[in-house]
């Protein structure tokens, strides 16, 4: 019974954490990226489906000042993320997440709706622990040992970017670049409390560009700047009457991306920052195979980035 509860807690926590991450959207700037997903330690395979509704509320300019959108505008993005995770061995797992994006942008004098596949993310994770580290009581130093995950994620530009046959910036569903992220995640549960820390560093792959919004241009090489993500979360798990669990997670995320380069010269107008807070409620049944979650993410500060609120509803099914 106790072991089962611990398993449940680990599974729900991982799902809650990844729903607390900062997404990168902004249809005008090339968005619709997926995030990664992680299988719980005992899981063999997982299907995950979630829906993000992102509402825009102005932006932070390069000086960090908030600027409102034009009066009469209503800008939003809806994303459905389909993911699958699969365990290769006791300590290795892989996952693939593919988003489908709907952009809905209405200004007083301009209106556009579009949809398409966003940028996909394929990941491989190594779990640097053999048994679950969740404990009910700390009796020794060894009980404080966290679960540590090392991950590599490849973002594949399956979305529609500014560099293809697209005439309007509102039709963009991806950024057009491959990116490789290295991640470290540490998580510790002392039931019913838990905490986690994730650090990621992403590097884009330079690419040639010969087209901008459908118009052919003089070819050049472009790269985006390195990307860092820091996420810190704290959670509390409550047991329901039928021995399911409810986990409440509060997370802070800090995302930054350095200025990119064009033909090897740094773009002085590039780079971005975004800080956000999110709150997630995740429910798991007693058999720990079904997980439902509801998450709200609010951008709290930033530079050169839209201010958005994201509401996420999702469900996961785990095979043990």
């Amino acid at each position, binding site marked *: 019974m106790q072991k089962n509860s611990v398993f449940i807690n680990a599974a729900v926590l991982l799902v809650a954490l990844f729903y607390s991450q900062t997404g990168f959207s902004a249809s005008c700037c090339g968005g619709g990226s997926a995030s990664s997903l992680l299988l719980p330690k005992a899981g063999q*395979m997982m299907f995950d489906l979630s829906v993000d509704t992102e509402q825009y509320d102005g932006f932070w*300019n390069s000086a960090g000042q908030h600027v409102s959108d034009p*009066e009469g505008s209503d800008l939003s993005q809806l994303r459905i993320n389909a993911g699958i995770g699969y365990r290769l061995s006791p300590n290795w797992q892989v996952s693939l997440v593919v988003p489908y994006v709907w952009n809905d942008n209405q200004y007083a004098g301009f209106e556009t709706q579009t949809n398409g596949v966003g940028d996909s993310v394929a990941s491989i994770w190594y779990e640097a622990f053999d048994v679950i580290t969740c404990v009910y009581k700390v009796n020794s130093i060894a009980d404080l040992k966290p679960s540590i995950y090392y991950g590599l994620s490849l973002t594949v530009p399956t979305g529609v970017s500014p*560099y293809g046959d697209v*005439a309007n910036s509102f039709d963009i569903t991806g950024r057009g670049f491959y990116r490789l992220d290295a991640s470290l995640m540490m998580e510790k549960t002392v039931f019913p409390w838990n905490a986690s820390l994730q650090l990621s560093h992403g590097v884009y792959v330079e690419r040639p560009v010969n087209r901008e919004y459908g*118009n052919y241009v003089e070819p050049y090489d472009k790269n985006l700047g390195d990307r860092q993500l820091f996420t810190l979360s704290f959670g509390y798990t409550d047991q329901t009457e039928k021995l399911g669990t409810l986990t409440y997670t509060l997370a802070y995320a800090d995302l930054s991306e350095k200025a990119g380069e064009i033909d090897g010269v740094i773009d002085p107008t590039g780079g971005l920052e975004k800080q956000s807070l999110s709150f997630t409620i995740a429910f798991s049944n007693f058999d720990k195979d079904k997980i439902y979650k509801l998450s709200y993410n609010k951008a709290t500060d930033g530079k*050169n980035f839209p201010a958005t609120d994201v509401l996420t509803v999702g469900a996961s099914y785990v095979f043990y």
Partner: protein
Amino acid sequence: MYFIKVALLASLLALVACDQIEDDLNPSSEDLRPDVVAGSDGTAVGQLALDFTLEDTLGNDLILSDEYPLNTATVLYFTMWCPVCDSHMSYMRQYMVAQYPDVEFLFIDYVTGTVSGSRQTQISNGYTDFTVLVDTTNAIQNIYNATMGTVVVIDSSGIITMNEDFKDAVKLSNVLSIM
């Protein structure tokens, strides 16, 4: 395992079947710009800029062909008042306006829809020191194949010398410095 293989194969086939994605999965460095007849009417580099009349946010009509003879160059910048546009416009104000005093910088608002609304947005975004033209019907945006961040540079004889994304401003600086 069989299910996963089928799912992955189906996903790959779906992606390969989409031409728009191919542009990004396997990008090209080939120069595919179409040839144009120099001096003909159009919106490509080397062509005579298509003329238009737009109202600015102060209610004045501006005729393009009346403007470009007055300046070394006329720069049209298409804005939708987003963070990318703001970083470009801020850069022009900070580094380019003083450097090129004989160049006229005109921002074209193609999203706000009304002169009064555009004026309000211009003020709230802090760009009252620039002339903002209001493309209420998106006609000029469509004619020039423009979108967020598009820069069109026109010389004093009306010939287009640049029509592409602002990017890092290097191309714009290079174009203006030789005019």
